[in-house]
C-alpha cells in the first residue's frame, strides 16, 4: 500500500473529515458502553442531553469549554511553529498560582489599587508565569537541541509538586480547615456570571476574544507569517530572513501565556482559589482540541465546545446509567486518532505500491 499526495484537497472534505471521524469514534465506543452493560442509544442520548440538552447543561458545557479553548489555543500556536508544547498543564497551574499571588495574597488590601488595575495585573502576572515556564524548554531546544516534548512533560510533574508545596505552605488558606487550597481571590476580581444561577462566567468572552486575536495574528501579521514559516520549513524561513530564535521565543511566550491565562480565568471565574485538582488534564486535552481543530484558532472554539460537552455529558450520564465517566476520555482520545487518519485521507489517496 502506498499513499499518493493529492494535488489539492477540497474544503468540503476538510470539514467533513473531522465529523466523519467523530461519528466513527462514537460507533466504536459503543462496544465499551455495551461492555458496561448499558443500552447504547440510551447512553448516547443521555450523553448529548447532559452536555447540550438544557440551558443548564449548555452553561456547564460552556463553562468547561473556557479553559479548553485557552489551552487549545496555547497548543495551536506552539504546534504551528513545530514547538511541541506538552506542558500546558503546568503552565495553567503556574498561571493560577500567579493569579492568586497577585489577587489574593495581600490580606484583602488589594495592594491599595483599584480593582480594574489589579485585575489587569493579575492577568499579566499569570500570562507571564506561563510564558516563562515554557521559555526554558523552548530555549533548550533552539540552543541545545533538547527535545521539548520530554522537558515540557517532566515540568508538568515538577509544577504539580510545586503547587502542592505552595498549598501546604506559603499560599495555604488558613480558613480552609486543613483542606489543601490556596488563599482565595478577593471578590472584586472574580469574573461576573453570564447567565445567573449558573457557573457560566465572562471568561468565555475572554476566551473567544483571544481565539479571534490569535486567528488575526496568524493570518494578517508578520509574526503570524514567521510562525507559520518556521513551522513549515525552518531552514527556508531562515533563508528568507525570518528571525528564527526570536520567533521561537515569542511563540513560547505566547503559548505559555495563553495556558497561564487559562489558569487565571479558571480561578477568577470558576473556583476562586487554587486546588491540586482544579485541572483534570486540561493541558493535555488542549492538545487533542488543537489537533481536532486542525490547528485553526477559530475551530478551537468549536472543538472545545464539543469536547466539553462530552465531558459534562458523561458526568450526568454516568450518574444515571452507571457507565464510567472515563468513556468521555476514551471518546476524546479515539476522536483524535480518527481525525488524524481522516484528515490524512483528504490529502492522500491510497494506491497499490
Amino acid at each position, binding site marked *: 500500500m502506498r499513499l*499518493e499526495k493529492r*494535488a*489539492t484537497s477540497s474544503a468540503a472534505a476538510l470539514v467533513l473529515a473531522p465529523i466523519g471521524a467523530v461519528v466513527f469514534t462514537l460507533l466504536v465506543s459503543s462496544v465499551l458502553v455495551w461492555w458496561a452493560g448499558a443500552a447504547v442509544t440510551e447512553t448516547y442520548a443521555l450523553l448529548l442531553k447532559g452536555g447540550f440538552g438544557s440551558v443548564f447543561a449548555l452553561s456547564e458545557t460552556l463553562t468547561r469549554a473556557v479553559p479548553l479553548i485557552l489551552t487549545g489555543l496555547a497548543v495551536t500556536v506552539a504546534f504551528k511553529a513545530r514547538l511541541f508544547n506538552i506542558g500546558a498543564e503546568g503552565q495553567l497551574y503556574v498561571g493560577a498560582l500567579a493569579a492568586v499571588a497577585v489577587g489574593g495574597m495581600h490580606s484583602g488590601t488589594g495592594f491599595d489599587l483599584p480593582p480594574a488595575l489589579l485585575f489587569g495585573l493579575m492577568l499579566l502576572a499569570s500570562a507571564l508565569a506561563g510564558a516563562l515556564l515554557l521559555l526554558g524548554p523552548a530555549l533548550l531546544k533552539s540552543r541545545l537541541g533538547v527535545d521539548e516534548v520530554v522537558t515540557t512533560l517532566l515540568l508538568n510533574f515538577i509544577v504539580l509538586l510545586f503547587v502542592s508545596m505552595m498549598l501546604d505552605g506559603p499560599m495555604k488558606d488558613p480558613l480552609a480547615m486543613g483542606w489543601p487550597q490556596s488563599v482565595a481571590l478577593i471578590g472584586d476580581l472574580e469574573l461576573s456570571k453570564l447567565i445567573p444561577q449558573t457557573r457560566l462566567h465572562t471568561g468565555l468572552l475572554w476566551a473567544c476574544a483571544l481565539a479571534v486575536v490569535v486567528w488575526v495574528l496568524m493570518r*494578517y*501579521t*508578520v*509574526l*503570524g*507569517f514567521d510562525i*507559520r*514559516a518556521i513551522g*513549515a*520549513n525552518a*531552514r*527556508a*524561513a*531562515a*533563508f*528568507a*530572513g*525570518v528571525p528564527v530564535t526570536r520567533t521561537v521565543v515569542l511563540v513560547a511566550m505566547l503559548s505559555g501565556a495563553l495556558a497561564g491565562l487559562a489558569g487565571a480565568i479558571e480561578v477568577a471565574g470558576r473556583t476562586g482559589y487554587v486546588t491540586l485538582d482544579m485541572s483534570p488534564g486540561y493541558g493535555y486535552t488542549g492538545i487533542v482540541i488543537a489537533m481536532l481543530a486542525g490547528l485553526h484558532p477559530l475551530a478551537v472554539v468549536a472543538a472545545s465546545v464539543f469536547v466539553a460537552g462530552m465531558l459534562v455529558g458523561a458526568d450526568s450520564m454516568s450518574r444515571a446509567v452507571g457507565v464510567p465517566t472515563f468513556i468521555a476520555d476514551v471518546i476524546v482520545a479515539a476522536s483524535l486518532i480518527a481525525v488524524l487518519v481522516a484528515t490524512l485521507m483528504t490529502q492522500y489517496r491510497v494506491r*497499490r*505500491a
Partner: protein
Amino acid sequence: MTAPVLELTQITRRFGDLVANDAISLQLHAGEILALLGENGAGKSTLVSILFGHYVADAGQIAVFGKSLPPGDPKAALDAGIGMVHQHFTLADNLSVLDNVVMGSEPLWQPFSRRQAARQRLSEVARRFGLDVDPDALIGNLSVGERQRVEILKALYRGARILILDEPTAVLTPGESEALFAVLGQMVAQGLSIIFISHKLGEVLRVSHRIAVLRAGKLVAQADAHATTQEQLALWMVGHAVEPPRALPGKSVGDVVCALDTVSAGTGRERLDAVSLQLHAGEIVAIAGVSGNGQTALAELLSGTRAAISGTVRLLGAPLAHRPSRLVELGVARIPEDRHTVGVIGDLPVWENVVSERLRSPVFSRWFWVRRAQARAHAQQVIAQFDVRGAGALAPARALSGGNMQKLILGRALLHPDSGAAGAAITPRLIVAHQPSWGLDIGAVAYVQQQLIAARDAGAAVLLISDDLDEVMAMGDRIAVMHAGHLSAARPAVDWSREAIGLAMAGAAVAAGATA
C-alpha cells in the same frame, strides 16, 4: 547475436496525469555499457526505479537473463542479479562500510552474523574491481568519491551482473570520473553489463557502447556511440535544435560591489579557508568545482545565513550584514542551491513565498500588519513576468514543478517591488546564484542563464556557483575554482582551459598566470 541479459517490454508508468514512461522497450546485452540519456524529467530515473523494484509499472514486462522479474520487489531484483548505484547515495553515516554493504545479505531470522567471511568477501570483491576501501571506516568520515565506491561495492558484493548507475559523475571531479570509467571498463571485462544514466553528452559518447535517448517519457532513439554525435544526441533529447546562450563579454566592468578578504568560515568538509574574491558590477564570476568543497559555505555567507569566522566581507563598502532581510534591502538577489528545502516553503501559498524575503520592508508591511493587497499584486506580477505555471498564487508552493519553482525564486530575487510599470526596472546590485540550473530541463536552463546574462548587462555583479563545467565556461567572464575550501584566483575565462580547470577542481595547484 546472443540473447539479451535484460529485456524491457512496453514499460508504462503514470503519476496522476503525468506519463513518466510510455511503452518503453529496451534491451541490454552482455558486456555492454548502455547509456540512458535524457533531460531532467524525461523518465530515466523512473525507468530504472521500476527495474530495480522501487516502483511498479502500470504495464509491461521485464525479463532478466530470460526469466520474468517480479515487479515492485528490490529483493527480487537483487536476487536476479541487478544492482543499483543511486544518484543520492543510500548509505548510513553512523554505520561502517562493512555494515552498509552486508546489511540485507543475510536472512533476517538468522541468530548470528558471519562477519569474518563477509569481510573477506568484501576485500576480494574490492580487489577484483579496483575499488579500494576500509571496511571499518564510518561512512560519515568518507569523501564523496569513497562513498560512491561503497555504493558500487554494495551491488557487486551481492553478485550483481547488471549494474545501473544513476548520474554517477554528478559529484565527481573530472579526474575521479576517469577513475570511475576505468572501473566500469574492468567490470565489463569481467562480463558485467551496465546501464549508465546521464545527461552529459560528451561523457556518454566517451564511455558507452550504445545510447538510448528518452524524451518526455518515450524512447525516441537508439544509436551506437561511435555512429552518432553530440549535436544529434542533443537534437534527440530536446526535439529541436538548441542554441545555448553564449554569453558575450560584458560591456563595461564597473566598481567593486562585494569584496572578500581572506575569509574563513565553517568547519569540516563544507568550509572556506582564507578565501579572497572581488565581484565587480557588470561581470559574471563563475566558481567551478565539485559540490561539497565549500561552495555552500560561500553561498550561505553571501546570502546572510552564515557568519565568517575571520577575514572581512564588504558589500558596497560596508561590512556584510549577517541578516538576509538587510541584504535583500541592499539589493542582493539570492538563488539558493536547494529550491525545495531552502528556496521555497512548500506548505505556504505561492504569493507568500514571493514576498517572503521582503515582508519586513515598508512595501509589504506596516507595523506588524502584512499589506496583503500589495503583496498579492506583486506576486501576480512576478508570476506573469517570469511565466510561473502550474499553480495559482493561492496554491501551496509545493504544487509547482522544479522548473517553475526556480522561476518563482528568480522572479522573487530579480523583480524589485518598486519596479514601476513604466519599465524602470531596478536591477539587483549582486546576484548570488548557487547551482541555478540544477535539475532543470534544457529550456529552463536556457531561461535561467538568459536572466543572469541580462542582469549582468544591466549592471549587476553576478556570482555563479556551478558544478557544471560547460555552464561555467560558457557563462563566466572570470572563472575561479573551489577545492577543499580554497578558492583559486579568479582569472579571465580566456586564461583557463578545460584541463586546467579540471586539475584545479581536483586540487592540483595552478601556477599563477599559466595558460596550460
